[in-house]
């Protein structure tokens, strides 16, 4: 179990961060998912763990959005400014290491570009794309994780890929 978590923890964190744009919220989402996974699914076959874990994480992300929607309604009700400075996630996450400055800058730039384009996608398209393209889940597994049909997964994935290709430019192809 520990090794499984080791293999997916950072990807799960990044996925959650793309969804909620806040480091602490992303950490909470991943931790809650891990706790629930250990409680409910640790007896399941190991081959199913990845899909099941991402299913829980997607549920947590959905719950997070529901809570956020309620909170924002309250903010509007009390007339508070709902525009909070989210900050540049890249700046928050950047870690100066002993790298070639040019290479580092290029990596940062590419990630920043990708992040911007990923955030332009709808949440479903974004998560389907990340689960399929990055996590390597099958269409069926992605459909289970996202609680939608396989046809919907294919449509979301196709549209997300097309939009990213178009916006990121030829240098990514």
């Amino acid at each position: 179990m520990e090794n499984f978590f080791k293999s997916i923890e950072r990807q799960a964190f990044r996925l959650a961060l793309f969804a909620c744009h806040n480091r602490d919220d992303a950490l909470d989402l991943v931790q809650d998912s891990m706790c629930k996974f250990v409680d409910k699914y640790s007896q399941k076959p190991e081959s199913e763990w990845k899909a099941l874990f991402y299913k829980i994480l997607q549920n947590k992300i959905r719950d997070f959005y529901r809570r956020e929607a309620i909170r924002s309604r309250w903010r509007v009700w009390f007339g508070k400014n709902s525009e909070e400075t989210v900050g540049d996630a890249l700046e928050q996450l950047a870690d100066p290491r002993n790298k070639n400055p040019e290479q580092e800058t290029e990596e940062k730039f590419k990630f920043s570009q990708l992040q911007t384009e990923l955030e332009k996608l709808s949440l479903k398209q974004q998560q389907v794309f990340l689960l399929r393209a990055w996590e390597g889940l099958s269409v069926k597994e992605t459909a289970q994780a996202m609680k939608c049909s396989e046809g919907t997964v294919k449509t979301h994935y196709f549209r997300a890929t097309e939009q990213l290709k178009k916006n990121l430019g030829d240098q990514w192809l």
Partner: protein
Amino acid sequence: MNDPNKTFDKNIRQVLNQSIEDLDLETAVKVGQLKYHALDTSRKRSSRLVWGAVPATVVALLLVFLLNGQQKNSLQQISSDITELSILTATDTLDFYAEEIEFYEWLSEVLENETDLSDLRGDLSTFFAPDLVLGSGIKRRNSSECGITGIPGDFRG
């Protein structure tokens, strides 16, 4: 020639993988701790369940034993009370209870079971009282009439 779709996917994966490698130290440490927290929480919860279940089981077993013992004692007490009462209220002599009661009890059981009753009735009637034929004219008295449960009145002399 490279498939543009594959190259695109590869580039995406590469950039994303690099982004998780480049997590700042604080975030990386926090992410790394999540799994230990999840595993610890689960272990604590399961041990709490086990240790919570042990005293509950012990208490439940004790209650069952106590209640069961009390019930047995009270049942035994009631049955012995009934026996004593029936002896006290009966009109028979004490010799009857001391010497002949076992025989009559056996006889009572046999008659209650009604196994091959016609043969038995014939034998008994000739043995005890030739002029008293059970089931033919003279009705057996109800056992409650004689005061002793299970002993037919016809065989009590």
